[in-house]
């Protein structure tokens, strides 16, 4: 990559958003990531129409058939079509990724803003809470929470959301403290704006870009976490398909039906890779300071 284009000359009427878009589009891998994500989202949304078979319909005459014209990805131990289950499974994975990260943002950002803007003992309490949660590795916290909440996809999503939220608290807190020290917030405060208005109107919009980048990367982690929890039987419950639970079943038939393990795992890998590529590109586009790192 050439460095000479690092500072694009802004044409008249060139908004920051448009400049960011241009920087993003120059990042070919990030665009590729976005395309892959779009394909997966389309597959998940259109699953009822494009899946060739019913994802839960069993067929005793078609147990563990290798990939063929009829079943592109083969069939599983109950004669269900693996392709159809991968397509329907995308729903569980993408929904878990998007919803749990949205929930983590909704939990984390307000607390982070509160801590960063008020300071004092409120900040101390929120920060120690965050430290406490971050001292348990993400996946172990999610497993423990999901175990105590009981096995269900909704509970797994809640567990992931709670486990992912401290990162957003920390990020929002740091950015809020930075913003608090700037002149525009100082000016807004001296004009007599109430604290909530300063938080929402003056601070939040400025911290959206880094939050967006972090959220994209968190979706990648959340998708792996959902797959892990479902793999352990703590997420999506049978017979409903999820990539993690499909891998769990596949492990028992590795010698006879390796295709059962290959395709759901490949789906997780591709979608997580796509979110990571997309997030990296987004960081370059939205946060010029982090460029070239």
């Amino acid at each position, binding site marked *: 990559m050439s460095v000479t284009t690092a500072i694009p000359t802004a044409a008249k009427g060139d908004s920051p958003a448009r400049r960011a878009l241009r920087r993003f589009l120059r990042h070919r891998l990030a665009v590729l990531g976005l395309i892959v994500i779009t394909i997966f989202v389309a597959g998940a949304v259109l699953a009822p129409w494009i899946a060739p078979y019913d994802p839960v319909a069993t067929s005793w005459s078609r147990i563990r058939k290798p990939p063929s014209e009829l079943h592109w990805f083969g069939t599983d131990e109950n004669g269900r079509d693996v392709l159809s289950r991968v397509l329907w499974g995308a729903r569980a994975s993408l929904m878990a990724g998007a919803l749990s990260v949205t929930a983590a943002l909704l939990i984390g950002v307000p607390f982070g803003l509160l801590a960063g803007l008020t300071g004092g003992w409120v900040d101390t309490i929120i920060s120690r809470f965050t430290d406490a949660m971050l001292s348990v*590795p993400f996946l172990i916290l999610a497993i423990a929470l999901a*175990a105590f*909440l009981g096995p269900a996809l909704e509970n797994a999503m809640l567990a992931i959301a709670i486990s992912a939220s401290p990162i957003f608290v920390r990020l929002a807190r740091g950015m809020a403290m930075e913003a608090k020290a700037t002149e525009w917030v100082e000016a807004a405060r001296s004009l007599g704006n109430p604290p909530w208005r300063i938080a929402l109107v003056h601070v939040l919009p400025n911290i959206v870009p880094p939050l967006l980048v972090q959220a994209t990367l968190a979706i990648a982690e959340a998708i792996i976490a959902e797959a892990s929890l479902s793999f352990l039987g703590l997420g999506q419950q049978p017979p409903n398909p999820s990539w993690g639970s499909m891998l769990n079943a596949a492990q028992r038939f*590795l010698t006879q039906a390796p295709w059962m393990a290959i395709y759901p795992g490949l789906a997780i890998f591709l979608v997580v890779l796509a979110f990571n590529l997309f997030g990296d590109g987004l960081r370059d586009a939205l946060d010029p300071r982090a460029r070239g790192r």
Partner: protein
Amino acid sequence: MGWSASRACGCNSVMWGWLLRRLGQIIPTLLILSVLIFALQQLMPGDPAIIMAGEERGDPQVLAEIRAELMLDRPIWEQYAAWLWRLLHGDLGFSWRIRQPVGSLILEKLPVTLQLGGMAFLIAIAIGIPAGIVSAAFRDRPADWAANAVALAGISTPNFWLGIMMILLFSVELGWLPPSGYVPLSQDWRQSLATTIMPAFVLGTGIAGVFMRHTRAAMIGALSQDYVRTARAKGLPERVVIGRHALRNALVPVVTLATIELGRLLAGAVLTEQIFSIPGFGKLIVDAVFNRDYPVVQGVVVVTALIFVTLSLIGDLLYMAINPRLRAA
């Protein structure tokens, strides 16, 4: 992080002050953590006494005895105080299923995971750090792109899937390695290595990508410094400039990161041990989850958090120890 203020000074009192402040943060953090872990119990659906009674759940007298033993008939704060008191004395409770103290269960399983984690850590360092150095030295050239692509793939691969794929290739197809099981080092070191090399590799590759990215970033930062330019101007060979001048400085942040990643290996071990049927710490929590053996789940979380907090403290101390700018004058 708190080191930035003390960095410029390099005097002893600042270092000690920082250390005291750091410890002052850890204690409330651990207290809050204990409340959170205790609170997990309250999320539990159903009556713990019924779960614990098992087949005798119909007998009201048994239920009453269990409730009294678990202090379920006491106010919640009293339950917490008693739980914390026992915890501070190293008592992690009693497994509901295996009928053994949780502490001894964990102590029994931990060495297995330490062996696995240690091997994975070595693999991650052996791959990640050289790859990061090469990547930074050949920045924006094919070697860099290749290293970045491999690192990204490593980070994006769910390690349980990689484990399944490796079993498929090396055990099912090629028949080189046992697909699962574990032999202790003390019993037969060859067999022990054969049973742990695949899981260690699976566990290590995920972090290798993280190491590679951080080493690369730190090396790129170091290579742009004045002292590197001076070293080059003196006519030193590039090998010496990179190996002796840039690398020493670049590795400082990587060491801190390494200790944190070492803690994260514990989380990775959960699924990896499950895939390869290795009877370690990770499999312990999974089995406990399946058996609804809640004290074990809690105990594992407590121990993980303690290890994690200790490691990050060691990371900070190492950072101070190896960073000449922070060393006492």
